[in-house]
């Protein structure tokens, strides 16, 4: 997981410029457009990678479709849009490797695309308005063209979650509308 400290400050009040609300300003209940469709942020998760480095993930919903928008500022902002997938969808070879070695392999081929392990990072995560942190190790993969991403998160010896997605331009998230503060 990349290093960045953009989200390290606890935000107690909003600070966006209403004339220019960006993806960095997103919060729970916000509405935005992506691919000419309306999406609503239904949950916000914070990841603490140590050394005051944080990333943030938004659960977003469009009707019955749920996706995950991950923001990472490692000098420049990287926005990834992902779908959660069952770990078994990665194939027998990968799942066998994971359960034998208690960690994923360095290369994964999924739906014809070869992903390479880019980074392994231990950290903690929690929903932003909750108190309890969960420990995890994140294995981030990227394809040869550095456009598609795959991520496996390990929460315990036998608990793994996977997601697959793509890097999208920041500008593809637009018409962001804030939720009224309570």
């Amino acid at each position, binding site marked *: 997981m990349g290093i960045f400290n953009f989200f390290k400050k606890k935000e107690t009040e909003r600070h966006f410029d209403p004339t220019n609300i960006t993806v960095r300003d997103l919060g729970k209940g916000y*509405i935005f457009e992506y691919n000419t469709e309306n999406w609503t942020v239904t949950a916000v998760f914070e990841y603490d990678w140590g050394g005051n480095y944080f990333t943030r993930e938004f659960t977003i919903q469009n009707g*019955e479709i749920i996706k995950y928008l991950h923001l990472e500022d490692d000098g420049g902002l990287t926005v990834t849009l992902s779908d959660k997938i069952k770990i078994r969808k990665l194939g027998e070879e990968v799942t066998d490797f994971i359960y034998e070695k208690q960690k994923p392999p360095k290369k994964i081929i999924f739906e014809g695309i070869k992903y390479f392990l880019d980074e392994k990072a231990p950290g903690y995560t929690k929903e932003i308005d909750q108190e309890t942190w969960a420990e995890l190790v994140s294995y981030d993969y990227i394809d040869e063209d550095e456009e598609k991403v795959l991520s496996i998160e390990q929460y315990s010896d036998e608990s793994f979650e996977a997601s697959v997605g793509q890097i999208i331009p920041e500008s593809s998230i637009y018409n962001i509308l804030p939720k009224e503060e309570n």
Partner: protein
Amino acid sequence: MNIFKRLFNVGKAEANSAIDKMEDPIKMTEQGIRDMKGDLTKALEGLAQVKAMLIRSQNDKKQFEAIVKDYQNKAMLILQKVQKNELPAEDGDRLAKEALVKKEENQAQVNRTIMEVEKFSQSTSQLERNVSSLRVNISKWENELKTLKARVKVANATKNLNKQMAGIDSSSTVNMLEKMKEKVEEEEALAGAYGDIANEAKSVDDEIDKVLDTTSLSANNDLEALKRQMGLS
């Protein structure tokens, strides 16, 4: 407080007064922009609320449409079963009728959500126009503010330059140098006067010393004695 400091303060006060007069519209514009941004935030929040209702209505509409389609299919399947003698005609008709009643109930919900979608779409469009208008005004004000600030800078610089050129700026360097020159001349004149007085006082003392001095008399006596010793006198 010396005169230069006083003069400088007078000049500074005058300049501040002039700038204050110019700053009022700047502060007013800045406050106006802050107020408009507050209004824009509220408008965006309102738009978000209406858009959320629009999204919910659109989702409801899709769900009710799916249910309508489902009851339609069920009614058809029931009739097909009757046709295939897999179900008694009486039961088939009753169940198919029930399915069609359910279909109609949900069709009513579809019609309701269509109206809601229409209503919320109109509200959304109206609010989007308001938001757009506010954005344009804020942008206009921000540009005017930039221009105003630049004009204040230019006005102040021009004013100071003109004052210096006219030689009426009490805090100008030229004026201060002139005043310093006068001051130095005054000091020099005063020093000269003290010098004259000092010289005058010294001459009186010298005369007194001269009168009272015995050194010269003693020397004359010594000279006469030496001449006598040498047989010259």
